[in-house]
């Protein structure tokens, strides 16, 4: 008997209006069959004040809904204040998901999760992070199944990025602002216009990437649908669903059914495809081919 696969809802990576953000988590709390919910601003600290006021209320709602709540930290902290905020959250006793090595340092051995933004590419580095107090580790989205197999055995700690636009890069520069001809300091939060990220096309008009402030994501939507069984066999304990504006409750149900074996990958793919997704389904990274490769239809 293999272990039950759990589902983790990743932090909302995009700049959603506060009301949408609150409503989203309320519905997740009440309806989504996910075990853990990460929240917290991961991409840009300038956005943080907006949700700070309502975070406690959302945490409470999620906990009442039976979810384990994890506070996900900034992926590229640079300023003093950003580091201090992370320290405060640790002090406050939240369960922390570290997305940067600085946060691992601040945690100082305390039990924590590791998000998909820390470079853990092999079994040695994974073991080291477990020793440093990590109990759950979401691997970087570019890792192929072959690597995951080597890393996930016997530690009951590995989570895989299973759904959502794959996060590809972080920068100090804000591209949403740059696209509008301004700099980050004067951004006026233009990133809130693109709630699944701003689509970026090549010179031929081929959809390619998506920009979310200082973050760059793929245009495609990762969906490891056809590999769920292989992932479980590999020893993976959790699938991470990264929020997009589509019906995430439905997404969670589809993955729950997949994990429980009560739906087939083909049915799951079909169910996902009819949701309002920002791009085509992809499993390229997992297959060890370009991450932009769309899932081949059987």
């Amino acid at each position: 008997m293999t272990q039950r696969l759990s589902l983790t809802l990743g932090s909302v990576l995009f700049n959603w209006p506060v009301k949408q953000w609150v409503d989203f988590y309320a519905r997740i709390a009440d309806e989504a069959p996910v075990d853990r919910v990460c929240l917290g601003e991961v991409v840009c600290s300038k956005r943080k004040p907006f949700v700070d006021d309502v975070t406690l209320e959302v945490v409470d709602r999620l906990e009442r809904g039976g979810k384990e709540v994890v506070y996900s930290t900034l992926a590229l902290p640079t300023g003093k204040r950003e580091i201090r905020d992370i320290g405060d959250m640790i002090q406050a006793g939240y369960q922390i998901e570290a997305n940067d090595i600085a946060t691992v340092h601040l945690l100082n051995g305390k039990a924590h999760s590791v998000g998909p933004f820390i470079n853990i590419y092999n079994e040695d580095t994974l073991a080291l992070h477990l020793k440093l107090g990590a109990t759950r580790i979401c691997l970087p989205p570019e890792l192929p199944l072959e690597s995951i197999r080597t890393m996930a055995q016997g530690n009951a700690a590995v989570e895989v990025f299973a759904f959502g636009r794959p996060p590809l890069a972080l920068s100090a520069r804000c591209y949403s602002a740059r696209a509008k001809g301004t700099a980050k300091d004067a951004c006026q939060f233009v990133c809130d216009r693109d709630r699944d990220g701003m689509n970026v096309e090549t010179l031929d008009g081929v959809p390619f990437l998506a920009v979310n402030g200082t973050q760059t994501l793929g245009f495609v939507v990762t969906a490891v649908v056809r590999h769920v069984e292989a992932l479980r066999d590999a020893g993976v304990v959790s699938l991470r669903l990264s929020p997009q504006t589509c019906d995430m409750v439905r997404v969670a149900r589809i993955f729950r059914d997949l994990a429980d074996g009560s739906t087939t990958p083909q049915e799951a793919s079909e169910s996902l495809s009819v949701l309002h997704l920002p791009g085509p389904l992809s499993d390229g990274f997992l297959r060890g081919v370009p991450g932009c490769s769309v899932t081949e239809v059987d």
Partner: protein
Amino acid sequence: MTTPLELVCPAGTPAGLRTAVDAGAHSVYCGFRDETNARNFPGLNFDRAEMREAAAYAHAHDAKIAIALNTFMRAGATDLWKRGVDDAVAAGADALIMADVGLVDYARKAHPKQRLHLSVQAAAATPEAIAFYRDHFGIARVVLPRVLTVEEVSRLTAHAAPCETEVFVFGGLCVMAEGRCMLSSYATGKSPNMTGVCSPPSHVTYREDRDALVACVGGFTIERFERGEPAGYPTLCKGRFLADGAMSHLFEDPVSLNAVALLPRLAEIGVTAFKIEGRQRGRAYISSVVRAFRKAIDAMAAGKKFDIDELRGLTEGQRDTVGAYKKTWR
């Protein structure tokens, strides 16, 4: 200034290494011919025997040699990287440059006395991140990410001690946090972290289209240079894209970093080493850039003024920038 400033120069080939040393490099950095280093390009890098000879050449000319093993170990194949560490130490490396914390851990345990540098690919951009590597593994120097302002470099340098800081002053510029970028992996399946290449030549094609040069990476058309317009590397983050109804160099223009004007300020805030990017470049580049920067550093040490205008032709897109060192870049 307590420690003398160090000019750290690239060497992609043994001939390039000799050129850099002869041109006045205080130290050179290079890598083995495999995916253990982040410049894993065809025809580049050193086999084991060449590395030993390179170390001997550098040492005979009072220069140091740092060996980069700055990709992330592949799961199930970590021996390749560990052997690289052992062989680098045996070759006489003055320092190893690494990014994967698992490999750093191995190097520290297997070679307790070896000097270790943290690669820019580890993107340690906060005092806490630097403290992590310094306190756990005795990292002696950290190469700072290229996305920091001078003020941030200053703060980091102050906090890093006794760990030294090294900053890039010339050459290619990553606009993304280094070692945390999967654009190349996304478009081509080959990535800096796993394969040691970014926008690899194997996936680059050029075609002529009505007098313009069109560049594709992984089948994605990312750049079009009109006749007479300077070209740049076909790097994904330097491409031209359509977003929000407009075509632009959305991420970064095809420019190169040239921080020569900032040298005095960087020295003043305590930066130990100035790094020149470009292991993939030819001897002509290495020789002229190294010579020019060495002249500037010597002039600074003697309290004299300096001026470098001669480097423009070597920069990508033939334009240079002080990049992120100025906050307005963001």
